[in-house]
């Protein structure tokens, strides 16, 4: 047990420390790198909880894809660090307000869970009694699939549609068709035959073309 405790505190403290560094480091690229470290430790905590599938998904999606995009954008920015510092006090009230709201909501959620656990459970949200499979008998992925593709199939599909709409929106916003751009048309190139591409002429000697 002591090993589990040590591992938990290791992951937890590194996660918190890295999260603090995300918002306090001066260089935005370092911030993103610390964000990645935070994700990693969160994945470690998931593994400790026995949710190894979620842990891997967290790494694949957030570290492998989302954070790469962050890093891309941040690296390409031409940032003036001095200017960045100056706006700090200006944004402090808004930031503090958001922080306080988040904190209050977290306290409400945790408090609500502590006083009446299961209040937000399936039987109270109109989903009927759910059979939660006992842990250890089914694998993570199977347990997730059993609820995700049965009870919550419409919500799951709706989430997918939202992402699709966002993706199409981003493409539409950035797509420009410039005139005069010559693109490679591979089908055309392959379909080309010697007869239409070149002309063989008989040149009489001394006559020229």
């Amino acid at each position, binding site marked *: 047990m002591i090993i589990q405790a040590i591992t938990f505190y290791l992951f937890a403290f590194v996660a918190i420390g890295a999260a603090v560094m995300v918002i306090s480091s001066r260089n935005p690229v370092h911030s993103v790198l610390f964000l990645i470290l935070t994700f990693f430790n969160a994945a470690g905590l998931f593994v400790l909880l026995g949710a190894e599938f979620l842990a*891997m998904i967290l*790494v694949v999606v957030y570290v492998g894809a989302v954070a790469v995009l962050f*890093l891309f954008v941040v690296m390409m920015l031409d940032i003036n660090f001095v200017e960045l510092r100056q706006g700090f006090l200006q944004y402090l009230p808004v930031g503090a307000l958001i922080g306080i709201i988040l904190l209050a909501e977290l306290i409400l959620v945790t408090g609500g869970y502590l006083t009446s656990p299961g209040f937000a459970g399936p039987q109270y949200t109109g989903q009927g009694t759910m059979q939660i499979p006992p842990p250890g008998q089914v694998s993570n992925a199977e347990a997730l699939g059993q609820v995700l593709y049965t009870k919550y199939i419409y919500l799951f599909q709706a989430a997918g549609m939202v992402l699709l709409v966002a993706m199409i929106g981003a493409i539409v916003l950035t797509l420009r068709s410039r005139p005069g751009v010559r693109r490679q048309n591979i089908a055309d190139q392959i379909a080309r035959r010697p007869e239409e591409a070149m002309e063989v002429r008989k040149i009489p000697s001394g006559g020229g073309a």
Partner: protein
Amino acid sequence: MPDLMTFWTDYGEPTAWIILQILAVMVPLLVAVAYLTLAERRVIGLMQLRRGPNVVGPFGLLQPWADAVKLLFKETIVPSGANRVVFLLAPIVTFVLALIAWAVIPVGEGLVIADINVGIMYLFAISSLGVYGIIMAGWASNSKYAFLGALRSAAQMVSYEVAIGFIIVTVLLSVGSLNLSDIVRAQSGGVFGWFWLPHLPMFVIFFASILAETNRAPFDLPEAEAELVSGYNVEYSSMPFALFFLGEYANMILMSALAVTLFLGGWLPPADIAIFNLVPGPVWFVLKVCFMLFCFLWIRATFPRYRYDQLMRLGWKVFLPLSLFWVMATAAFLVFTGTVPK
């Protein structure tokens, strides 16, 4: 000292056992990486009617060690204006990621360090992290060549990962498990029972995608020595450079091992014949990995480099739709024939 004894049996012994297992994988792997560099030069030499390095030791067998010693004794240069910490962290990240993925690769029946349920997810997660070493190196070098090389490399790896993900899903659909040992066991029945045959188009796409994922020819645009000098690792010297090099080759071996596990039946013998069954599983595994690696080198000696827009077209407009279609086709086939694995 009863306390110390229980401490040893509870924690000390398992830890020592795990460390032994790790060494049993790491040491052969690093030797394999060293000899892969030699094999590459020799094989390409033979294909181009040259001799390749044959002077250091018999058949040039000591060449990798000569190279390693040379790199070790060079000076580590950190460019001025480079971000020192990130600059030195990048090769370490690349190298470590190439090694830790081996924890879940089964080299034989039961011969795996961590036989976890989500083995293939773990591998996919680790391989999707490989891009960080390269981006960090490109950014921290504070050099335009390195940065451009890193951008190319990152975009390429991210693009081909999508196709690899879908190909993995097709294999998972036909196995019904995320465990790599289960994936191998599902391919029993000799060479025609392996997944390369029913998933032949996916095997071809997978092979092309792992070439792109490991930045190998014909997709080695990140290094494109004619345009980018050498890509993301221009500014590196000595051991940091060696770590990149080792990481890249270890990744090649890893991806070959993954292809063998997914499509070529892992440690299983090619036919259920007594002589074949006598040969231990790891030998078959190593032979198959060697075959895949030979294909890597063969392709490098054969094909010219892709242009960047062609590379992106191939990844997004050919491989992605094809693999997506194959996922649907496999799922539909399994459902309609009632052969969905439990």
